[in-house]
């Protein structure tokens, strides 16, 4: 029996003797692999980002919002001349007094309220999260304070800022953060720095005491959301329905539902991109089949000679499958390299606005759907690399199957008879 090295050597030499055709064939596989690889890496990027966000933001079991729309004047319009990255908040607020009624529901462990408002640092939009220190942590989980301390009062100009924003502004604990709210400048004492691991999140969210925020925005007694932690998270559905039956204007959203929604969207995206990638790869497969068939026809005499001098049909089959394998490997590797580059380039050409859609109404974005330009960093894993390589090889082998079989059926006397 022939050895593997001989098969590889002959396959390489043959492919090399038809350089142009081989390169085109490799390219036809590589395109599909590159697409698949970059798209999967991007979806992975979105997935890991949103997973981090959800994990950070969703220790509350139920979020209550007022779904009544108001005209945008209730929201805060962007200051003149700023590029509006963030659409003004368009949901109505909730009267704080509702909180007391809700807190009396038996299965609730703790409830707190939250006011979110858009503000600007220089011309960069940020979101002020007005929270009740002490309560907020019980419901939503503690922020990871890496420097300084958390908020300590209900109505004072204190602020906890994300690490990334601190670095951007070159601020340190004890310094002053100047923000613009409703065209008024407000000075806040930076008391602490938190880290979340998601840069975008750290850039956007700034925590201040709830009453202070209500005062400076003229919304005393109003909040954007009520966050609820249950004694038993399993009750979430029934508690949410109960609240909604008492307050038809409010909407109680389960965080599990949000997570589900997000992961459903991600799996839809993955399927969609996988399909596109696979279609491209199948097209590449036809390229391989075509090239290999042409090779078989061109090499009829060669195959006849090999058969005459004692190559079994199995050897011929292996020879052609080896060629398919080599094409698949080269196509796979080229595709992965191209896909790697593509994964980093693509997001620049398609400013992805998915973040807020993937997490509809997530508090990370101020409690209302907002369209925000963020860049997605692809996540490249060995799994993806192996998957791309294996798909390339398998598609190529499948495509080579028929031509190889044809080659193995060639009868020496038939192809050697005439010049």
């Amino acid at each position: 029996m022939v050895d593997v090295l001989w098969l590889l050597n002959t396959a390489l030499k043959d492919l090399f003797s038809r350089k142009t055709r081989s390169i085109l064939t490799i390219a036809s596989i590589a395109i599909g692999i590159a697409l698949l690889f970059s798209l999967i890496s991007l979806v992975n990027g979105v997935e890991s980002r949103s997973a981090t966000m959800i994990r950070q933001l969703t220790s509350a079991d139920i979020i209550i919002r007022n779904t009544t729309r108001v005209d945008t004047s209730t929201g805060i319009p962007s200051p003149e001349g700023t590029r509006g990255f963030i659409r003004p908040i368009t949901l109505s607020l909730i009267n704080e007094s509702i909180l007391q009624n809700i807190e009396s529901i038996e299965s609730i462990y703790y409830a707190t309220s939250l006011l979110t408002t858009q503000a600007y640092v220089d011309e960069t939009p940020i979101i002020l999260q007005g929270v009740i220190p002490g309560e907020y942590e019980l419901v939503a989980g503690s922020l990871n304070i890496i420097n300084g301390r958390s908020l300590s009062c209900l109505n004072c100009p204190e602020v906890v800022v994300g690490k990334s924003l601190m670095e951007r502004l070159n601020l340190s604990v004890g310094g002053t953060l100047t923000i613009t709210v409703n065209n008024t400048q407000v000075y806040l004492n930076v008391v602490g720095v938190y880290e979340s691991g998601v840069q975008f999140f750290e850039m956007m969210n700034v925590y201040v005491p709830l009453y202070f925020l209500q005062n400076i925005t003229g919304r005393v007694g109003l909040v954007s959301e009520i966050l609820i932690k249950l004694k038993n998270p399993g009750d979430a559905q029934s508690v949410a329905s109960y609240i909604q039956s008492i307050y038809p204007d409010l909407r109680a959203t389960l965080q599990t539902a949000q997570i589900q929604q997000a992961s459903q969207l991600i799996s839809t995206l993955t399927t969609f991109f996988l399909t596109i990638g696979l279609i491209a790869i199948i097209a590449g497969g036809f390229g391989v089949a075509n090239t290999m068939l042409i090779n078989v026809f061109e090499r009829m005499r060669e195959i006849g000679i090999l058969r005459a001098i004692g190559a079994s049909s199995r050897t011929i089959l292996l020879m052609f499958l080896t060629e398919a394998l080599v094409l698949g490997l080269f196509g796979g590797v080229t595709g992965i390299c191209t896909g790697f580059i593509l994964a980093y380039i693509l997001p620049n050409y398609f400013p992805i606005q998915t973040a807020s859609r993937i997490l509809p109404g997530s508090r990370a974005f101020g409690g209302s759907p907002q369209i925000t330009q963020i860049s997605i960093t692809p996540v490249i894993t060995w799994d993806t690399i192996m998957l791309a390589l294996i798909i390339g090889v398998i598609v190529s082998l499948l495509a080579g199957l028929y031509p190889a079989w044809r080659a193995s059926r060639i009868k020496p006397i038939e192809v050697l008879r005439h010049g």
Partner: protein
Amino acid sequence: MDNLIVKAENLVKIYQSGKVRVKALDGVNLIAHRGEILGIIGPSGSGKTTLLNIIGGLDKPTKGTVFIDNTEITKLSEEELVKFRLRNIGFVFQFFNLIPSLSVVENVELPLALLGVSRIERRELASTTLRELGLIHRANFKPSELSGGEQQRVAIARAIITNPKIVLMDEPTGNLDSENAKNLMKFIEKVQEKYGVTFIIATHDPIVVRQCERAYILRDGRFIEELNGQAAVNKYSKL
């Protein structure tokens, strides 16, 4: 069969394509002795190639038997024939004998690779053979870089590398001018002396026929007579 290496008896080959029936061989007998150069000569369409293919186990006769060194190859299955050819029979065709993408030495190694001989051993054996046949300076050439005569010599080197029982050649000089044809025949004689190879050559080239110890004359698939090479040339030079 001590001195006898090939014994073919009563070979009949009928080609049937649609309604057309061609009797390519009609009761041909043939024997070949160990180490001889045997010619099969006859005009175009007389059945030379057909006979050679059947002796070489590339084709099956409609009737008749072929023994090669006590093996009745007409009884072997397709797969057994492949193995038999690899070990026992060398082939040289009129043209295009070599794999274009492989170098000369790799072409010569081919049967050894198919036999599963190790890389080092087969390279050594192929190089030795090329050296002995005065072809070593072409070892790393591609077939397309060789002259027609050189290509045929390399094909002969490949045919004898497994030390086969017989080497079958179909019009080996068909693509060569007379000068190259003469040189190739000298080469074949050298190989025969050196390695004791048995050659069976189908040809209508007088240059080849002259060097044959015996020649079978075929016409219309029938055996006409057996002569020595020179006599055959004298009698049938107008073929």
